[in-house]
């Protein structure tokens, strides 16, 4: 992969913010000096290994730990029943009944619900011994019939995962906006698709999960050194289960080798390790291995859409969509069913669809529990919308570019309110598309496509993926799932401190995993405090002892540029205010005369009258006799700020409200060559245009674009997690699951425009997740290569055999699509729709 950048639009700035600076953290990361969870440890620790189920669904008949316990070096073994007995309650349920009846404990109790489900946990004096001992824990299982299809799982006759719930359906709700029945009756055409399937995959972090957990019997403190990405969520979920109050947790993260949302899923492991440590009286260290990760750490949501109906006017105006969705959460509900509402942040996608009804069912099945996965839940829905746009163009003989441009939310429409009350803040989709088409040389490829013609054995396809990355959640949307939940709004914390010798220190509530928070936070703080980013030390990772957290703290869901940097701005401004106050006192000047330059405060226009930060720190920390007490009480040089975005609680009955603060957009264009003989798809050209408002660091933004693009291409062509009927994962290792490497990922040409968000402190928008644009664009390109009248691309994953099948499907075979046109067209005025 080589990386080419289009010239960055927007002029060079005089500030550090906005500059394409290399990342500060890269020096240590590329020199092998990063510090990851497996690099850490605690005195006297043992090594933990999970005993995991080989079955997808089975009753646990018995567990015999004796053979393991009798081995030299084995400290203890914890079973599911034992762990449950040490708990005060199952994990907190997000869902109301029946979902809340699907209880989970730190280890499986009574039965296992997916291959890899943890039934016991061994602690020993070495990793090797722990693993050997885990093999000697004898578990007798009685296999049960499994259900591994999301639609089938909803059927009342399907095998039940939770007898107590009486159903596999976790949650069901109808999201109904506008009047889709009316639109279907009045449209010129109705395009019907029987099924679209968004597959399971994972973003495959380089670093698997890990934790070192100590239950201190003396203090009752549970120390958790881990790479968990949303620590206080874990504390809130685990605490009531294992009986530990929040202030007796000590969560710490360091460098994290990628998380993508997946690292929200392993709180049960942390809870189990805490209980293991409690039982053994020593810390427990667990480092997940790759196959364990692939089997158990969490997969992205798999969603099947059925009975899709799209009302379209003769001119290509799409009025809306009606569909039923089945989302398959796997064996346990680790963050689900939040996905059942999160997609509704982007109900109409990039388009002015007015009439939308999605009948949404979430189920459990005998598969690995899903976790948020980059593009979480919106990507699945946006993929469906993009497929619809293409299919409409394809079936009605319209140009997919024109259909998009006609239906896009237009630049003048912002702020644009969606049918469910979300406010799209800003953007310019038509321009993004034009840039992307140009960067991908689409005119030349269209010409080449015509030239190639039939008989060459090769086909060129050009595809578009327009998508949104909605960021900064309003957690109030969880109440659409369960009105009883005590959540709404959002927030993040930063602490800016002038240290004893005048050093500037920033602590974050976030858990960066490669997003460059140390760099962008120091850029922002440097501008406010009159120093360079090198003068600002941003501590690595999360540390509960810093007190830089609220309940939402962490790194997830495309929000750092808004919430994290909003907090850094607030904290730095607070600190600046204190510095100015102290300097004005020291320099006998007015506060508005003070400027901060080069690590000192000075009087504007009189540079001799200056005091360096070390002098101000000295006044406060080590030399404060005789200073006015009001001054000291106002200026402790330790500024904590909580950024809270402006949100209301959504209407849980109508299922409406502003669910996210910002909407970054991505328009990707992909040109593929398809080999008719094999179905192989090769990407010939790829352009990604990102609009995330003001970019604090364009280089970091591009890095995120590359990462998200790579993952999306990988998912669309190479990576899929499939189960057989008994619940065995077919791709449990990299032998079967081909993780795309630089050899598979094409040159990505990046372009950007900046439509500042009017709602954020800095005009920025979260953009890290990326909305799955490559999945949309690659499917669209394959569809284009297949051509008019051919089969519809109905799956988000298109490996060679599937593409081959579509290319060679017998003429007259079912196409999964139907167009019903009203004769003579309608005379309904499109404008009034």
């Amino acid at each position: 992969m080589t990386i080419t950048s289009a010239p960055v639009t927007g002029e060079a700035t005089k500030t550090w913010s906005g500059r394409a600076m290399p990342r500060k953290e890269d020096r240590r990361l590329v020199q092998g000096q990063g510090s990851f969870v497996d690099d850490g440890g605690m005195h006297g620790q043992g090594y933990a290994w999970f005993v995991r189920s080989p079955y997808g669904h089975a009753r646990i008949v018995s567990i015999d730990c004796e053979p393991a316990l009798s081995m030299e070096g084995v400290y203890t073994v914890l079973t599911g029943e034992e762990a449950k007995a040490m708990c005060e309650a199952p994990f907190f349920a997000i869902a109301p009944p029946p979902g809340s009846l699907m209880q989970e404990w730190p280890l499986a109790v009574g039965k296992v619900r997916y291959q890899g489900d943890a039934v016991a946990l061994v602690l020993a004096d070495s990793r090797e011994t722990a693993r050997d001992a885990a093999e000697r824990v004898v578990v007798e299982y009685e296999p049960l019939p499994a259900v591994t299809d999301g639609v089938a799982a909803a059927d009342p006759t399907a095998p039940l995962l939770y007898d107590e719930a009486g159903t596999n359906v976790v949650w069901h709700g109808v999201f109904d906006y506008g009047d889709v029945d009316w639109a279907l009756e009045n449209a010129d055409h109705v395009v019907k698709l029987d099924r679209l399937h968004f597959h399971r995959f994972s973003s495959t972090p380089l670093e698997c999960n890990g934790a070192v957990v100590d239950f201190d019997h003396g203090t009752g403190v549970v120390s958790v050194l881990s790479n968990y990405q949303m620590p206080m969520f874990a504390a809130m979920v685990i605490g009531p289960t294992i009986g530990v109050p929040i202030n007796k947790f000590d969560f710490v993260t360091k460098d994290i080798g990628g998380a993508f949302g997946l690292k929200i899923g392993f709180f049960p492991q942390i809870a189990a390790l805490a209980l293991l440590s409690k039982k053994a009286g020593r810390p427990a260290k667990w480092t997940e291995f790759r196959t364990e990760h692939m089997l158990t750490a969490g997969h992205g949501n798999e969603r099947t859409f059925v009975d899709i109906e799209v009302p379209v006017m003769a001119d290509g105006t799409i009025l809306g969509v009606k569909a039923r969705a089945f989302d398959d959460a796997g064996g346990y509900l680790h963050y689900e069913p939040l996905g059942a509402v999160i997609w509704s942040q982007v109900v109409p996608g990039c388009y002015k669809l007015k009439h939308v009804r999605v009948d949404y069912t979430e189920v459990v099945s005998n598969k690995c529990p899903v976790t948020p996965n980059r593009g979480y839940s919106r990507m699945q829905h946006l993929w469906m919308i993009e497929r619809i746009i293409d299919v409409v163009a394809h079936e009605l003989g319209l140009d997919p570019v024109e259909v998009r441009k006609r239906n896009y939310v237009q630049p003048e429409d912002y702020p644009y309110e969606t049918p469910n009350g979300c406010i799209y803040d800003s953007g310019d989709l038509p321009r993004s598309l034009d840039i992307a088409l140009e960067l991908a040389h689409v005119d030349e490829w269209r010409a080449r496509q015509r030239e190639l013609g039939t008989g060459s054995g090769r086909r060129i396809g050009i595809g578009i993926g327009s998508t949104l990355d909605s960021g900064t959640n309003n957690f109030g949307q969880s109440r659409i799932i369960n009105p009883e939940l005590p959540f709404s709004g959002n927030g993040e914390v930063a602490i800016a401190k002038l240290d004893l010798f005048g050093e500037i220190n920033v602590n974050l509530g976030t858990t960066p995993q490669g997003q460059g928070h140390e760099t962008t936070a120091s850029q922002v703080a440097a501008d406010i405090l009159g120093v360079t980013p090198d003068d600002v030390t941003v501590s690595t990772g999360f540390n509960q002892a810093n007190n830089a957290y609220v309940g939402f703290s962490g790194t997830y869901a495309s929000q750092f540029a808004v919430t994290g940097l909003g907090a850094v701005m607030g904290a730095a401004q607070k600190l600046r205010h204190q510095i100015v106050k102290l300097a004005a006192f020291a320099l006998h000047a007015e506060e508005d005369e003070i400027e901060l330059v080069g690590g000192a405060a000075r009087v504007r226009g009189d540079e001799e009258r200056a005091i360096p930060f070390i002098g101000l720190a000295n006044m406060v920390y080590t030399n404060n006799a005789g200073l006015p007490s009001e001054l000291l009480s106002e200026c402790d040089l330790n500024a904590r700020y909580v950024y809270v975005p402006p949100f209301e609680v959504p209407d849980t009955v109508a299922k409406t409200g502003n669910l996210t603060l910002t909407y970054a957009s991505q328009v990707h264009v992909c040109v593929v060559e398809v080999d008719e003989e094999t179905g192989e798809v090769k990407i010939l050209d790829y352009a990604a245009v990102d609009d995330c408002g003001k970019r604090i660091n364009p280089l970091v933004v591009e890095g995120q674009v590359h990462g998200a693009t790579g993952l999306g291409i990988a998912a669309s062509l190479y990576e899929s997690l499939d189960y057989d009927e008994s619940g065995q994962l077919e791709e449990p290792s990299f032998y079967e699951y081909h993780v795309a490497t630089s050899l598979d990922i094409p040159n990505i040409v990046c372009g950007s425009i900046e439509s500042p968000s009017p709602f954020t402190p800095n005009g920025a928008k979260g953009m890290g997740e990326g909305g799955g644009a490559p999945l949309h664009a690659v499917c669209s390109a394959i569809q284009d290569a297949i051509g008019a009248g051919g089969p519809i691309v109905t799956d988000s994953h298109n490996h060679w055999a599937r593409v081959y099948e579509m290319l060679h499907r017998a003429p007259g075979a079912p196409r999964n699509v139907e167009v019903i046109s009203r004769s003579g067209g309608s005379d309904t005025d499109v404008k009034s729709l």
Partner: protein
Amino acid sequence: MLLEQVEYVRPETVGDALEILASDDGAAPLAGGQSLVNVLKNRVASVDVLVDISRLAELSSIARTADGGLSIGACVTYDALDRSPEVRASHWILGDVAGHIEDQQIRNKGTIGGNCCLSDPTNNLPPILVALGAVMELRSRSGERSVPAADFFKGYFATALEPGELLVSITVPPMPEHSGAGYASLAVGADAKALVRAAARVTLDEGGTTIAESCLVLARVAHVPVRDAEAEARLSGADATEEAVRAACAGVADGMQPIADVHGSSEYRRQMAKVMARRAVVQAIAAARGSRNGSTAGGK
């Protein structure tokens, strides 16, 4: 690495290695370790003693045989094959196939002997060695024997090796005049396991217009590399053109039952075997006509 307890020895000579292998049922040769260590790590097999043969000089050389062929030590690495001027001079394709196995780290360690002795149907080298008519030179405490590559691979992870026997070298006969070899694979991704592959060697007549003789080997349609004798018969005497080759390869793999998995059905693999076979033969023809004794476009 989380292996079970295992003993490790590094004998000084091939003779010592054979002694240890003969005296201990639980002993296994360790060459590059690129498969064996993974197998042990995943605990799908267990070994009592690892007999490290990777540093035995006798097994690590590449020599020209009197008839112009190659004698390749079992512990020659993929990287050494890739970079060997000797190999490139007479059997370009062998270097090329070896140079495309997975990544550089694996190529630095993995050996031609290990690649064959594992008999993993996805391994790259067995089909090309069969196509080139290679002979496996085996040695045990009781003596030596030679087994044609075509008879060496017995099944999924099974070979003609007897307990206590080592593969010491592989003899590759010289390429006849007017001959060339080709190699085509279909894989999920750039450095992924192959779904299907084909290796071919053809000899053209003097004029270079018809195929005099050929050897066509398919891999991953069965547990071992298989020659398609019927296709070879159709190829012999056929025009050395793409159309003729296409016609000759149309029946390739018919009647075979390749494995089906998430990457493709049995039927898909059968179809792909035809395509790969044709591509390999067409490459081999081009190589036979060109100056090179093997293709450049082989890859995986």
